[in-house]
């Protein structure tokens, strides 16, 4: 019965192959062919990959994506921690604040997109109205910066609560004695945060950082519904770029860019994870 371990692994392997291996193999297969509707696919080797890498639109989308993800992380992580610090720790306010905080997480992506389109619409939207009071002419469908920042704002609104909830759970887990000791040591509020709270939050923040990084790389429905990827290509992020290519039936090209996209996500997540765990290890020794 040497095969018994494989027997136990079989259900997982079957599920994995349906959900991951087979689609991945299919996409890799696409990426090596030139496919036109109706005709037989033609094997072209790595030509699609070369084309993708030389495509300035692809490089633009990748650069935009990296900028977007980095900015989202830089805003959402500190803001989430800040929100968590402001939440009540006990008493009647806890339940209601957590529920209110969680609401954005419960709203489906497409609803988020439509709601924000209403907010930002130049004729009836509340955001252009408010900004016009301050003399700023906001136009999400004409101004590239406005469009980019709006998508960023939606992402921050949508996902900061997740970071806040994680940080809140982390804060609740810090034993009170650490704060008592800090008080006895005559520590200032800032130093208490710097040397007690922050180091103790590190594990949950690492988790939050990774989740948010990978998720922000997948941003799709917000730009699709709000800006349609425009104006120009200002909000065409990676997934939107790939989807557009597939919609245009350039399946080989879309396949190749998907694989490169996947590769970038994996590599970036790995680098990020290594960086975080390495820096925490260095602090430990």
């Amino acid at each position: 019965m040497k095969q018994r371990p494989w027997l136990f692994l079989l259900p997982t392997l079957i599920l994995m192959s349906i959900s991951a291996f087979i689609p991945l193999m299919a996409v890799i297969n696409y990426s090596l062919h030139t496919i036109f509707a109706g005709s037989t696919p033609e094997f072209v080797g790595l030509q699609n990959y070369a084309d993708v890498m030389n495509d300035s639109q692809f490089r633009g989308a990748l650069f935009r994506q990296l900028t977007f993800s980095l900015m989202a992380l830089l805003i959402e992580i500190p803001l989430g921690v800040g929100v968590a610090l402001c939440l009540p720790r006990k008493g009647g306010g806890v339940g209601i604040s957590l529920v209110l905080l969680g609401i954005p997480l419960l709203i489906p992506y497409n609803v988020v997109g439509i709601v924000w389109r209403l907010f930002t619409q130049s004729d009836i939207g509340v955001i252009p109205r408010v900004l016009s009071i301050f003399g700023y002419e906001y136009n999400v469908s004409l101004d590239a910066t406005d469009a980019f920042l709006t998508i960023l704002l939606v992402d921050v609104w949508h996902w900061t609560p997740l970071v806040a909830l994680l940080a809140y759970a982390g804060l609740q887990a810090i034993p009170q004695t650490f704060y008592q000791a800090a008080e006895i040591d005559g520590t200032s509020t800032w130093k208490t945060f710097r040397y007690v709270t922050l180091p103790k939050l590190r594990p949950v923040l690492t988790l939050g950082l990774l989740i948010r990084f990978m998720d922000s790389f997948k941003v799709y429905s917000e730009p699709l519904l709000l800006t349609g990827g425009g104006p120009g290509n200002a909000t065409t992020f990676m997934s939107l770029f790939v989807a557009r290519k597939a919609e245009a039936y350039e399946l080989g090209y879309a396949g190749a860019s998907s694989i490169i996209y996947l590769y970038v996500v994996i590599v970036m997540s790995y680098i990020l994870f290594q960086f975080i765990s390495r820096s925490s290890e260095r602090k430990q020794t």
Partner: protein
Amino acid sequence: MAKIELKSLEHRYESSHKGKSAFAIEDLNIAWEDGTANALLGPSGCGKTTILNIISGLIKPTSGEVLFDGTRVNDLPTRERHIAQVFQFPVVYDTMSVFDNLAFPLRNRGQDESVVRARTGEIMELLDLSKLANTKSGSLNPAEKQIVSLGRGIARTDTMAVLLDEPLTVIDPVLKLDLRRKLRLAQHELKLTMIYVTHDQHEALTFADHVTIMKDGAVMQSDTPEALFLTPRTPFVGYFIGSPGMNRLPCEKTSTGLSVAGSPIAIQESIGLAANKLDGTIELGIRPEFVETSIEEKPSWNRMAIRSVDYAGAYQVLNLESGTVRIKARVEERFPSQEGDFIWAHFPADKTHIYVDGERLDR
């Protein structure tokens, strides 16, 4: 260092049940002399930690006074009381090195860096931490962390007292001895006023010169370890201190003295005579160590059956029975006895205590 006094101290915790409040501490009076090693011993929930938190100012007492060297400190905030506290779970600043941990409270008080270096060096030398100076505290084992957290407390020269809240609980048994030795060493070298809270009598008796025993928020007895063992003031103290605890036997008065639970247990006349004029509930207490035993019959000794034998390495504990009376006797490991045997037991007068309504009778 300072003399720490608590006067008529009371503390109530508001419970969640409609403003009902429960006493954690009631009318407490204790004085800990300057530069002494003290222990506060009692079962869990008797208010020990509450007392420490009142001394350090983390909790405000409902009423009563806290005095440092005779000065009332009730209204001083924690950081101005100059207390060092070591908690049950080691508290260190994980991201700092051992050196920085010890220097932290000094730097927080704006001390000159040369002073900080000199003092931190001294403390590391004393606590044997020098070789760990540059190690990140997060990577230390719990015993080392506990030493660092002690060091942080005593690094300040203006420390009034060092409070230790069950500091050995999470420490590996092998490392416990070493840590306790270092605690004792630091206490002795720096003439620290230490208050060591524990529910472990062994830790309390081996560490402290002076042990205060508490129960339900009140002091039962405050004395040297020896006095607690030899002359426990209440049956609770007798039972709580010692392993196994003191035997407690309910007594009745008779025309000649005392009898135990109406059983044919003989008590020496000198014990009985002292108590036969008293009113109230009378109890007899004798430690298992002091119960004399013999496998041969002796006149006026009590014949008792061995119900069971607990083997404890260097000694054995016999569970003896006669009628309704059950006692424990500690005998040497070679004592030739087994379950079901009969032996003869005797309570020597000078080792037997009489308690009237829970108070020891001085004879």
